[in-house]
């Protein structure tokens, strides 16, 4: 059980809290980094922002070979998620859930779904996955 690790990232994992560089506006999610990956400001000053629970697929992959307990194909996407307020979107990676390969393409609009990411022993660890809006699945 790794309580401290999951506790540190609860704002990101459950509230879509991201971190906006005050120098250049780049948004980091979910990592809370010390150096801005775009402008290299060191140490960088980041402001907490909230992402909207939706985004647009920029690219994706389908993982076909996984351990037996995982359902394949497992879809993983890079998604641009806009902020609740003004500012640049966050470019994030995430798993797709309840989504067939045929339902996804570059430009597909997805929503963020609060799901159990995995279990640590018997305890669920929660976060967000992506899927097509309900009713728009194939």
């Amino acid at each position, binding site marked *: 059980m790794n309580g401290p690790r999951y506790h540190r990232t609860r704002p990101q994992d459950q*509230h879509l809290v991201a971190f906006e560089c005050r120098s250049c506006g780049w948004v980091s999610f979910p990592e809370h980094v010390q150096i801005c990956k775009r402008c290299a400001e060191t140490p960088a000053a980041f402001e907490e922002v909230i992402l909207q629970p939706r985004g647009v697929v920029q690219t994706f992959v389908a993982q076909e070979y996984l351990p037996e307990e995982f359902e394949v194909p497992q879809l993983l996407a890079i998604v641009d998620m806009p902020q609740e307020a003004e500012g640049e979107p966050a470019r994030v990676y995430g798993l797709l859930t309840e989504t067939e390969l045929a339902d996804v393409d570059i430009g597909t609009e997805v929503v963020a779904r609060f*799901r159990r990411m995995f279990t640590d022993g018997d305890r669920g660890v929660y976060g967000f996955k992506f899927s097509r809006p309900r009713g728009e*699945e194939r």
Partner: protein
Amino acid sequence: MVAIDGCGGYVPLYRIERETVAAQHGETATGENAVPFHDEDHVTMASDAAETALSRSSVDRGEIGAVYSASVTDPYAEHGISAPVSFRLGLPGSVRTGDFRGSHRAGTDSLSAAMAFVADRGSAVLMVAVDIVPVHSGSGDEISAGAGAGAVVLRPGDGGDAVISDLGVATTGFVERHRTHASSPVDGDPSFEIEAGVRPATASALDSCETPRSAEAGHAIACAPTPRIGGAVLDELGTELETVSTYDRIGKAGVASFLLDVTMLLEDERATGADRTALAAAYGAGGAAVVSLDLATNQESREGATVSELLDHKQYVTYAKHLEYRRSPATGVTAE
């Protein structure tokens, strides 16, 4: 006076036809069951329903004073649902929490406590009900095991979606049907339970309502461990009432069916504007309760998917997938 100001439901995307399950065991059945995906559990489903309810409510999240959950299938002895849901929704750290268990009356028990909190503190309460009925491959209850979640926001005053005009309770201590964690229920003698438990308790709860039942009552909801018991409850409420139920489309959803059915009624009522009152009853181990609702006439549109839309937006899975998706250590479901 306590009003329901915001309601929401959640039904999993996947379904399995009961005929598919029954055929595995040489039986037949009608209807279909909701099948939660492997990454769904009580916390995620309750959070979805609650998010919808809050998005529709005029109550600000910062005004929520308590979160109460109701479930008969929570797999954890220690974990809770209301506190994780409260954190997920960004509610104040000062909220009181309560997780109601142990009976299909858990929904009305938590409703009663919520009403008392609203009246005493003048503060709003978020109430969620969520269940994932355990599946044991080959057992009789597998044929109708479903899942779902519902949520309502209660506040002082009138207006909103509905006003709770009365709540009658009959605590009898009568137990016939029962179940231990993650196991199949022990039904006992259903006929005996209906005659000695269901009918007297429901009638007594109805009689204990302080407000005489309105002659305009048009709808009835019954939350009960089995359809047969639910039918007896509806019988006691009055056979002339129109029944509201998600059972045929999601299966047994435990206590969640209480708030799911209430939400579906409130959503549809706003759409149709028909009949203005309803009786929602719950029977479970220990007794029964009856809630009288005066429905609103406001026809404003709602955010988020309605229960009817969630029921319509579905995908069917095979029997193998149904077992695979339900094999989850966190939900305590066994699907051997």
